């Protein structure tokens, strides 16, 4: 019965085990929402991963065909509910691109301040949940304590703590209360040392490095091929950030701001950053780098907010009033992607002359990031699944729309 040796060249000795199908989700502590991942496991080793989405599908695009552009704004908050300001910004800029309008200096700077503050909050949630998924509870408490302070600032400016509906196409609902900028700067000053604590607790922690370095490696070509964007793409070494390389309407917002895109191009980070060095085990594109890129982006966002506050007080003129409720949309299509914390958030509006858009398409960043999951999770252990999922930092509201 022994097949001749020549035909089969490699003989692998292995204890015969049969495989098991496990449902990780839709109700699971580390799937960041209602994502169901079916794992084909052989013992602890995962041989195949098939994500199932759609549990949170509210057909946001169908609803958009019945509401005018301003009425639809609250729906964009509910897409990526951890970064609602950036969602509003994306929608507002797409409408302004369709209408061909531009906003005043003051509004532009206020938009930068608010968007970057929300990016800090979103990255804090990502870092906290990453620590939680790896088993250490404390970073989660520290990051949420800081995020509460940002959310208090947002509550003062627009009254809501999670779904703000603040940045309307054409302008903002209301100007910031007096003393708001002072409180912003106070928050930023006391936030600096907290970042060093987080780095000490997680980034340079030996167990954290062992759990994340060289796990879920996403090579740059595969990242581009699967359309991954944001920190996931930059952590794979692709130097691409819409705030600098995007369409003119996006890059104009950041005119006059000095900041840096964080990406380990050529295997190295820009060397001005004062934070813990890259451990030797880490490979460009692994879970550790995705976490590290987000932590450095928080620092860049802090620089942007400080510059925004100075430019806002220096800028003259008034805050713009938003467009009318029943603003007529011109015939034609406009598609615009903006740099949201989780990746590039694309909105497409097809206008047909009436106030209600004919068709709205929402391109979600996490939707493409999660599509690369089966590729990078082949042959990892079950414990690594939650590490990789946490490093992709997905939000199901945005994926399922």
């Amino acid at each position, binding site marked *: *019965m*022994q*097949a001749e040796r020549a*035909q*089969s*060249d*490699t*003989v*692998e*000795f*292995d*204890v*015969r085990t049969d495989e098991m199908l496990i449902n990780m989700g839709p109700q699971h502590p580390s799937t960041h929402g209602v994502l169901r991942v079916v794992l084909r496991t052989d013992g602890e080793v995962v*041989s195949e991963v098939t994500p199932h989405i759609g549990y949170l599908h509210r057909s946001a695009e169908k609803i958009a065909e019945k509401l005018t552009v301003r009425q639809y704004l609250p729906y964009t908050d509910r897409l990526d509910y951890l970064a609602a300001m950036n969602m509003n910004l994306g929608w507002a800029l797409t409408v302004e691109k369709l209408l061909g309008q531009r906003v005043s200096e003051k509004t532009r700077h206020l938009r930068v301040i608010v968007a970057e503050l929300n990016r800090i909050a979103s990255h804090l949630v990502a870092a906290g949940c990453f620590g939680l998924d790896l088993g250490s509870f404390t970073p989660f408490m520290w990051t949420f304590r800081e995020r509460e302070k940002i959310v208090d600032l947002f509550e003062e400016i627009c009254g809501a703590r999670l779904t703000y509906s603040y940045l309307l196409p054409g302008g903002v609902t209301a100007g910031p209360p007096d003393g708001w900028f002072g409180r912003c700067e106070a928050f930023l000053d006391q936030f600096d040392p907290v970042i060093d604590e987080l780095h000490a607790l997680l980034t340079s922690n030996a167990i954290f490095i062992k759990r994340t370095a060289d796990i879920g490696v996403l090579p740059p070509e595969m990242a581009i091929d699967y359309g991954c964007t944001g920190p996931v793409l930059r952590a794979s070494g692709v130097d691409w950030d819409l705030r600098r390389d995007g369409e003119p309407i996006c890059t104009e917002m950041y005119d006059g701001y000095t900041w840096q895109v964080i990406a380990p191009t050529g295997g190295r980070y820009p060397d001005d950053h004062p934070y813990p060095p890259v451990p030797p085990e880490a490979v460009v594109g692994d879970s550790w780098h995705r976490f590290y890129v987000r932590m450095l982006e928080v620092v860049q966002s802090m620089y942007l907010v400080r510059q925004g506050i100075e430019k806002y007080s220096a800028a003259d003129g008034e805050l713009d009033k938003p467009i009318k409720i029943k603003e007529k949309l011109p015939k034609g299509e406009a598609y615009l992607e903006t740099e949201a914390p989780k990746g590039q958030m694309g909105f497409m509006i097809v206008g047909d002359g009436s106030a209600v858009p004919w068709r709205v398409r929402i391109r979600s960043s996490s939707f493409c990031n999660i599509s690369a999951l089966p590729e990078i999770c082949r042959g990892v252990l079950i414990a690594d699944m939650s590490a990789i999922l946490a490093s992709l930092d997905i939000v199901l509201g945005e994926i399922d729309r």
Partner: protein
Amino acid sequence: MDTINWHSCFFLLLAAIACGFAVAVVVVGDIVRMACCLVVSLAAVAGLFFLAGAEFLGAAQLMVYVGGTMVLLIFGVMLTARGPLVSMKIGGGQWVLALVIGVALFAVLLQAATSTSAWNGPKANDQAAVPAAAKQDDGAAAEQDAAGQLGLGLLGVREDRLHRQDKPVLLGGMSGYLLAFEIISVHLVVVLVGAAYLARARRRIRNPESRAPNPESP
């Protein structure tokens, strides 16, 4: 009301548990429950040793048998408890055969037990046992050091002669049972490694570029 002899009470209780669960091992269908009954009956035997004051032996029994059986339970039973093994159905014929062999063995044991003189005369033994039991709990500290004795026995010292001046204590050149003990354990390790090696099925990869190796063993 004469004093209740706790020692015999517990002895009977533990003996009943040991035998009861031993029977349960045979009767129970589900294989995991069977293994659990086995573990409980061995633990009851360990209890008997503790009752007899030999706590070193009791602890050894607990560690070796109950721990060992548990590992058997985990890897042998749970991971393969699928398919026919899970609930074994025993036909009528096998029952009869088992009963016959069981009764025969029991008869032999009974005959051997009754014929030894030391265990005769339950009345006499009871009296002797009571004082020992009464002193059992408070005299624990002054009791002989079982572990020390065993250790010395292994090293070849005749500890029973220590208080005698005339007989030699050391066995002169003999190193006791330690060497034999070690040889057996080395053999056991070799046997285990061999078994593990044989248990591995050969999985042949037809052509290297096909990603999933097709598990097919001769």
